[in-house]
């Protein structure tokens, strides 16, 4: 049913991703689909990497590590953004479309009062993406 999953990840908060990563890996194995790990980097140095290039290498290593753990097919897609705090939803949506995904699996938090005014990234992607979105809370 699904051929390619996109899993947006925030490498700064890897610890909060376990549940969504496992969910994605299990779905991928069930449908024999590929998982593309999508990361948005800053162009200025960040706590994850000094440059977009270094970020891309770390993301590739991360994808391979996931493949080693779960045995599914993986790929990695790194996108650099001028101003991720503001652009992240648009950047994610464009990258999801470019990757040709048919399912997005994404970690999100339980909506609070702030989400009524300022939806989470997961919420924004779910409401605007053209493909199915699975939010893991």
């Amino acid at each position, binding site marked *: 049913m699904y051929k390619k999953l996109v899993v947006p990840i925030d490498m700064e908060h890897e610890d909060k991703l376990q549940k969504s990563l496992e969910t994605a890996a299990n779905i991928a194995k069930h449908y024999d689909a590929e998982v593309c790990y999508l990361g948005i980097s800053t162009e*200025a140095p*960040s706590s994850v990497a000094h440059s977009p290039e270094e970020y891309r290498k770390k993301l*590739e290593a991360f994808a391979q590590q996931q493949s080693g753990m779960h045995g599914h097919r993986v790929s990695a897609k*790194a*996108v650099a953004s*001028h101003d991720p*705090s503001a*652009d992240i939803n648009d950047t994610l949506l464009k*990258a999801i479309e470019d990757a040709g995904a048919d399912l997005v699996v994404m970690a999100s938090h339980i909506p609070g009062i702030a989400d009524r005014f300022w939806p989470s990234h997961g919420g924004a992607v779910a409401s605007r993406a053209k493909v199915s979105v699975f939010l893991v809370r």
Partner: protein
Amino acid sequence: MSVQKSEAAIPSPEGPANVIETDYEIGQDNVTPQLGPFGLDIHNPVFFVSGLTIVAFVFLTLAFQNQVGPLFGDLRSWLTSTFDWFFLFAGNVFVLLCLFLIVSPYGRVRIGGRDATPDYSYTGWFAMLFAAGMGIGLMFYGVSEPISHYSSAIGGVTLENGVRTDWAPLGGAAGNQVEAERLGMAATIFHWGLHPWAVYAVVALALALFAYNKGLPLTIRSAFYPIFGDRVWGWTGHIIDILAVFATLFGLATSLGIGAEQANAGLEFLFGIPVSNTSKVLLILAITGVALMSVVAGLDAGVKRLSEINMVLAALLLLFVILVGPTLAIITGFFSNLLAYAEYLPALSNPFGREDANFSQGWTSFYWAWWISWSPFVGMFIARVSRGRTVREFIICVLLIPSIVSVLWMTAFGGTAISQIVNDNYTAVQDAGLELKLFTMLAALPLTEITSFVGIALVIVFFVTSSDSGSLVIDTITAGGKVNAPVSQRVFWATFEGLVAIALLLGGGLVALQAMAVSTGFPFTIVLLLTCYTIIKGLASEPR
């Protein structure tokens, strides 16, 4: 596994660059408190110390207005008159360093690594650096400054007890109208040409180099790594960053307050909107509101787009003045003013043994302190958007092209106003207050309603583009160089800046705190001279 590369966003491999190995991890000193529904990601202690000191200074100024005003006013004039030689000398060092970098082999180093590609097109990049760098000043001084220098130059030298009391640049040009115009334009261009842009270029290049090539956080302290080593992550660096936040926020808030007073005067002149605290506060709220929308929309959708609108409006106004004003005189004036600038430059920039103390201290040295106090903000913003350019390209676009635009702008606006006085005997511009000079000049040209409206719109949009880029810069510094901190933080800084401006406007103290912001130019001059050394050192270790 297959690896996809996003064509649009990731510039192909960045190529060799010489990253500085340090154990410091960006964001390691950050704390992430939850403030109600909003999560924050801020540097401890830079965020708290700068925020609290700013609040404390606002309260102290409001409480002790009569003491604080003269104190900072005196401090500023003491600094600019005692250390005038130091400001002028440093300014020359910055220009010479930039010119050297254009011709030296270091010019081949690329910001972001040898194979990095530019983040922004020339137009978007140029619009942003111009809107952040000068913008509003050109609106207010484009007409008034050439007239001031022209009038004082034609008045010549006046002596009282052997001390010069006139404000003429150099030796003036008593009674010689042609020479007075040349000297007046040269002096104006001197203040708006190579020197200010060299100050910005030095700060911006240092920050861009140490962030994009050396991998250090995008914050002011990183430029000092070659001098202080790992101590920049401690209090030495905290103080540098706090000082930068301080200068930026007070610089922005006080010019927002003073700008609101001037914009209100313009609105009264044009539309009869009365000058009152209510209108001024409404203006500040409107400007801050638009700036808020802009920072929330982000660098590309907000700041860049507004800067482009701004540049188009400014270009239209400039073109209009050139076409409707004395066209031929402006075109020939552009070249003769460039020549006059080149001819007078050595004398105007001479730091030692000056006889025109009023001019060199009251104008030049004050301007240098002013540009330098703005440099952490403008420099950091320019750095943020300049990745992918070579050093040579960078200096040409940050130093030479803006200087030429300044020459054209000053020639068109100042030249038209001088020609109105000299040829048409229209002296209204000379008599008008500073904030109205532009509008009285435009009033003598056709289509006044439209051009004045464009003028007011430009003043307001220029404030917005300063305010939004300033908030981005302060947010990045107070987040320890993280450019992906939560949006709520920049909302906080933009709002805070508006509130400080309103408090000072209603309570008094705008001028006093602006004097203090300008005074920070002195310590920063020392800091910037050190930066010249770190730039050379940093560039020398880069692959070319």
